[in-house]
Each structure stands twice: as structure tokens, then as C-alpha cells.
């Protein structure tokens, strides 16, 4: 018999903690390897966690509805595998130190560099690498400096969630005890977003191009097919599949849009994974429709609906938010006419779709009322120049303006 630790798994690179929603087994109950042991909820997703081993659930350390840092020991399983190691029951849990059971995913180091001193302090203070990922850095390029880790550690010792003191610069302004300032701790999703946005702007020279698109025919097409579509497919037909489909077709014509940059190499991808930016209660999430190039219009509509439903239900898996090759941000839902979105690294372009509004438009020297929208594309000028960006966007617009034959 061997006693195996079950730890809170790392469910994505920015996740620092997780909440136990439900234990599927109680203490003393037998469990098979890979059988569902518990359900957890993290910042971004809810997941069912399989057992790392078969055996008996010996001890539950963390009860339901409690939130703990990733890699914290949450339970012990007495495995039926033979092992000579004595049970480590008496040792206190040591996050990020013990050999990991299979349930835990490897910690992702990300692209952040930590100095020897920061790592020394982190180890002395018991700050895991996963936790370090969430420490805001004020050094060059967002590097975590000695000051940053000391501020973080001091804040953690303070005990309350809002206790982390602000960065030194802000501290100068926010006088302690002054009611003119309120210090709010950024959530993990927000910190990750902040880090990612700064990183992207530092990495890619952003250029934006705006095209006008006449959505009248798409609107008519959708309207005439909406009822039959919902009856046949079981979900509503929205504008988004039209845009996704147009983008996929345009990428097939201009594949450089679907690439990334590594050093002096361009990595062109032979698959098309379309990320769709969605605002959620927790912050910005970008679920991905995988292999869009293999799907027909209905298939795309189904995939878009699927990620939308699961985003709202908080049922996304870590895999659902990874691997995008191009992103669409529909800020039009907020009434925004024109925006300049920030590229989702390591992609090289992002399409922003503005609100569809009825406007007077000149067609054949007559004024007509049409459903119009502005589409903005931000692109990385290291690989995509104005000519390619403009041609791609014109292609998207051209496809959208001729929606016939979709269904």
C-alpha cells in the first residue's frame, strides 16, 4: 500500500487557486484509476478531476467550497500498488516540492524570467512558481523584481486579500488612511490580461485598418433562414458564423494572416483555429473554435454556439482557450462602432467587428438605407503589411456581402 497525495491541479497557466465544488467519493470509498474523484472550479473553468490511482480515498484534507492554492494537497489515496515508501502522513503538505501524482499538470513557467534572488526569496517564503506567475512585476518588461516579491510576500502575510500593498510608485500617491484612494487587488484573470496586453503591445508593431461592410444581405439571409435553422439544428442562427466563415475563407486565400513569429522565422499554420473574444464576469476569455478550416457553415455555427454556451455555463476546459491562430472580437455588441483591438499573441492579426447600424449609403448614385458595420483589423506589421492587411480585410468584406449559398 502506498499513500498518494492528491493536489489541487493547475488548470491553465494563469490559474493560482481552485475551489472544490464537490467530492464524488467519500472517505473509505474505493475508487478506480481515472474515475472522477472530485469537481473543481477555477477562475476560468469547472473541471472534473480523475483519480491519479486506484485505491481507497483515505483522507479529504480540503472540504467542499474551500479555495486553496494550486498544488496544495487536497486528499490522500491509499493505493493498491505495492510501494515501500512509508506513508508521509505526518509531513505537512509542501506545495511544489513533492513528486506529483498524475492528476496534476506540470507547472507552466510561461515566458517570465525570474532572477536568482527572486527565486531564492520565493523558495524561502514558500511561494510556488505557479503563484509567482501571478505576482505583478514592475521591472523592465514586467519582470518581477526583488521589491515586487517582497511586497507580495508582505501582502500575503498581512492575511487579507486586499492587503497586498500597491507598487512603490502608486504608494507614493495613495496615502495610507486616505479615503480618496481605494486599493483593489487585481484578480488572476485581470493580472494575466494586463501582462498579456503589455506583452503584445511590446512585441508587435500594431497597425489598424478599417473597412466598411454592408451587412444588409447577411441580415436578410439570416432572417429568412432563422426559423428553419433553429428547427433543424436546435440552436439560434447568429451573425457570428457568417463572420467566422468569411474569415476562414479569406485566410485560405491569404494564409500569412494565420501565422506567428519566432525570432526571424514565420510559422505558418496549416490549420485554422478561430478565437472569439468574450467578456465574462471573470474578465476577458477567448474560447477557440478548432479546425475551422474543416467545417462547413452549419458546422461552424454549431461550434460557435457550443463554445458560447459552455462559456456562459463556465464549462470550458483549459484546452478550449488554447491554440487559437486568429481572433475575432465582437465589440459591436456594446454599440462600439470602431475599435482597435490588441493582437492575441502569438497570432499576427485580430478582427474587431463594430455594431451593425442602419445608415444612408450611396448605391448606384442613389441613397439607400443599409445595415452597415465597421470592421477593424489590427495586424502585426512585422509580417503583415498594409497591402496584405487591406486585401485580407477586403476579401472578408466581399465574402460577407454575398451570403447566398450558405444554407
Amino acid at each position: 500500500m502506498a499513500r498518494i497525495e492528491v493536489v489541487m491541479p493547475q488548470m491553465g497557466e494563469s490559474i493560482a487557486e481552485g475551489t472544490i465544488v464537490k467530492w464524488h467519493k467519500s472517505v473509505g470509498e474505493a475508487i478506480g484509476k481515472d474515475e472522477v474523484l472530485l469537481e473543481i472550479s477555477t477562475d476560468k473553468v469547472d473541471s472534473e478531476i480523475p483519480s491519479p490511482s486506484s485505491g481507497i480515498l483515505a483522507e479529504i484534507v480540503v472540504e467542499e467550497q474551500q479555495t486553496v492554492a494550486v498544488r496544495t494537497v487536497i486528499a490522500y489515496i491509499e493505493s493498491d500498488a505495492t510501494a515501500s515508501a512509508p506513508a508521509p502522513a505526518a509531513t505537512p503538505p509542501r506545495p511544489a516540492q513533492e513528486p506529483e501524482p498524475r492528476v496534476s499538470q506540470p507547472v507552466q513557467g510561461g515566458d517570465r524570467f525570474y532572477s536568482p534572488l527572486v527565486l531564492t526569496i520565493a523558495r524561502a517564503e514558500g511561494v510556488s512558481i505557479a503563484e509567482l506567475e501571478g505576482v505583478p512585476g514592475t521591472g523592465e518588461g514586467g519582470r518581477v523584481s526583488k521589491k515586487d516579491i517582497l511586497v507580495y510576500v508582505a501582502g500575503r502575510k498581512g492575511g487579507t486579500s486586499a492587503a497586498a500593498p500597491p507598487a512603490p510608485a502608486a504608494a507614493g500617491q495613495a496615502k495610507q488612511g486616505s479615503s480618496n484612494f481605494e486599493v483593489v487587488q487585481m484578480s488572476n484573470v485581470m493580472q494575466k490580461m494586463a501582462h498579456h496586453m503589455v506583452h503584445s503591445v511590446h512585441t508587435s508593431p500594431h497597425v489598424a485598418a478599417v473597412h466598411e461592410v454592408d451587412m444588409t444581405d447577411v441580415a436578410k439571409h439570416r432572417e429568412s433562414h432563422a426559423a428553419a435553422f433553429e428547427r433543424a439544428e436546435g440552436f439560434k442562427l447568429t451573425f457570428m458564423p457568417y463572420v467566422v466563415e468569411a474569415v476562414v475563407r479569406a485566410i485560405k486565400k491569404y494564409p500569412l494572416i494565420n501565422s506567428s513569429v519566432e525570432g526571424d522565422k514565420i510559422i505558418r499554420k496549416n490549420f485554422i483555429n478561430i478565437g472569439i473574444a468574450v467578456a465574462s464576469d471573470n474578465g476577458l476569455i477567448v474560447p477557440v473554435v478548432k479546425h475551422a478550416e474543416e467545417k462547413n457553415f452549419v458546422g461552424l455555427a454549431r461550434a460557435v454556439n457550443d463554445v458560447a454556451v459552455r462559456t456562459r455555463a463556465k464549462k470550458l476546459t483549459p484546452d478550449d482557450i488554447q491554440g487559437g491562430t486568429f481572433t475575432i472580437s465582437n465589440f459591436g455588441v456594446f454599440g462600439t462602432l470602431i475599435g482597435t483591438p490588441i493582437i492575441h499573441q502569438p497570432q499576427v492579426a485580430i478582427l474587431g467587428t463594430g455594431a451593425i447600424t442602419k445608415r444612408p449609403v450611396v448605391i448606384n448614385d442613389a441613397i439607400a438605407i443599409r445595415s452597415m458595420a465597421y470592421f477593424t483589423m489590427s495586424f502585426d506589421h512585422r509580417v503583415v503589411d498594409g497591402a496584405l492587411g487591406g486585401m485580407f480585410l477586403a476579401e472578408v468584406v466581399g465574402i460577407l456581402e454575398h451570403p447566398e449559398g450558405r444554407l
Partner: protein
Amino acid sequence: MATITYIDAIAQAMWQEMERDPRVFLLGEDIGTYGGAFKATKGFIQHFGEQRVVDTPISEAAIIGAAVGAAVVGMRPIAEMQFADFVTCGFNQLVTNAAKIHYRWKLPVPMVVRLPSGGYIHGGPYHSANPEAWFLHAPGLKMVAPATAYDAKGLMTAAIRDENPVIFLEYKYLYRRIKGDVPEDLYEVPIGKGEVRRDGTDVTVISYGSTVHFALEAASRLALEEGIETRVVDLRSLVPLDVGLILDSVKATGKVLIVHEANLTGGVGAEISALIASNAFAFLDAPVMRLAGLDTPVPFAPTLEEYVLPNTEKIAQAIRTLARY
């Protein structure tokens, strides 16, 4: 306690030691009747006589060789190189004889070689040398590099009394530019002990000689204008190095800039960098950085000399870069 110049502090130590100890004597080019190229020994020959203030031929090998010989038979010579540049003519006497005699015959070699060093005086390629790296690499020699009048007197006193050959780096730029409170009586500044000239939490600057003053100026400017707190360490001695102080300073700030006037490659800064990397790696919050003279002889033209040597602005910029890291 009187406020005197750096060069007067050196002269005072030599004078008082000569008064105290009849074994102490001077030898060098034009140090007697002329009083020395920089007047460090002005009035000495009139007071102590030709036997103890010896004008020599223009031969650094002869000056250092004679000093070595005198030291091994019990005298305590102080040899002056007119400019540090010319020590190369006596190099063999220093690194082969002075440095090794104790190892070979177990004889003490109590002598001092004064090296008027450094630039910032528009002296050009033959009168601006900082040759410390050569001697750092020659086991058997001690080497000191005072930056203040107090240390100049205290280290000269300690050097004269030391049983080993001591290279005394004195900075022409500081000779009459800086003054300090110096006790009338003799005292020793221990060889091998550095000093924290200014404490700070963000970055440590390790330096010695003239550049300590530039580092202090940069540090006070950055503290005042940009809120960067710099710790400035004056090594004072190069052999032996104050390793404890160096490592403590790394631990205090996690970021280190080493500044010296001598050119970069193979310099004192390289040795200190290696010491830190080997012994304090886990305390580093940034790469160890060096700011030193460019790898070129010091040019005559003031604008070019300014370009080649470290100054307050270059040091401030390097500290800023480290603080930001």
C-alpha cells in the same frame, strides 16, 4: 584635526613615519632637490638629508631593484614612480623579485611603491595609466587605492609598516581636488578593509580611487531627483579584497555595478564579478554590470578623454538601468 589635501595627507604620513622610524627612506626621480613631479616630497631633502631622500637616475628597474635590496636587509624604502605608467620598466623587479622573495627565502620585503595613477588630467596615453590589473594577478604583492585624504594617510602609514611589498595607487586627479579632516597623529587604515560611503537599498556601486567620487555624486543626484537609493562601496584595498563587504553588499541590494577607471577587459571588475557569481549567485536580482574605461589608451583631447573614462553621468545612467531592471 586639520583639513588637508589628499597629496598633503600622503606626504604627512611619509614625513611622520620617517621621523618615527629611521629605517624608512625615499627614492625616486626628482624627489629630492626638485621636491617631486607633484611636490609630494617638497622639503623632505632639506629636513631628512640626501641619505634618506635619494634622487635616482631615470631607471624604474634600478629604483625598484634598489628598494627590494634595501628591504631584504632591513630598511623600509618608499619608491616613487613619477607616473604609474613607468612602472612597466620596473615590472620584473616587482613581480619576480619583490613579490616572490618571501616565498623563496622566507624574507620579509617591507617596501612601498607609489604609483601616481589615472586620468582626468589631460595627460594623454603615457601619463594616465591605471595598471592595477597587472598586479592583481601577481601573488605576493599587496595593493591599496585610497579615495580620501584620511585613507591616503592611514593607508600610507599601514603600507610602510607592512612586512610585504605594497603598491600604493594614488590618484593625480584627487591630489589637490579633494580635502578632508586628517588627524595630526599617525594612524593606520587596515589594508584589506573597504568602506560603505553611502548606504542604499536599490543598487550597489563598488568602486575605488577617483571614480568613488563620481559614484557618490551620481548616487546623491539619483536619490534627490529620481528616488533611486544607491549604496556606494569604496574598496580602498585591491589586494587583499574585502570579499565579505562585497558579498554583504550584493545581499543588501541584489544589484551591483562595478566602476573603475582602468579599462574594462581583464580588470578588477572582472575579478569581482566572478567572485559575486561564484559566492552570491542566489542573491542576484540583476546581472552584475561593469562600467570602466574603454579598452584603449587614454587620449589627450579632453573631449576624447571624457568619452573614454567613466564619469558621473555614465555612472548615473548605469545605475538607472540596473534600478529599472
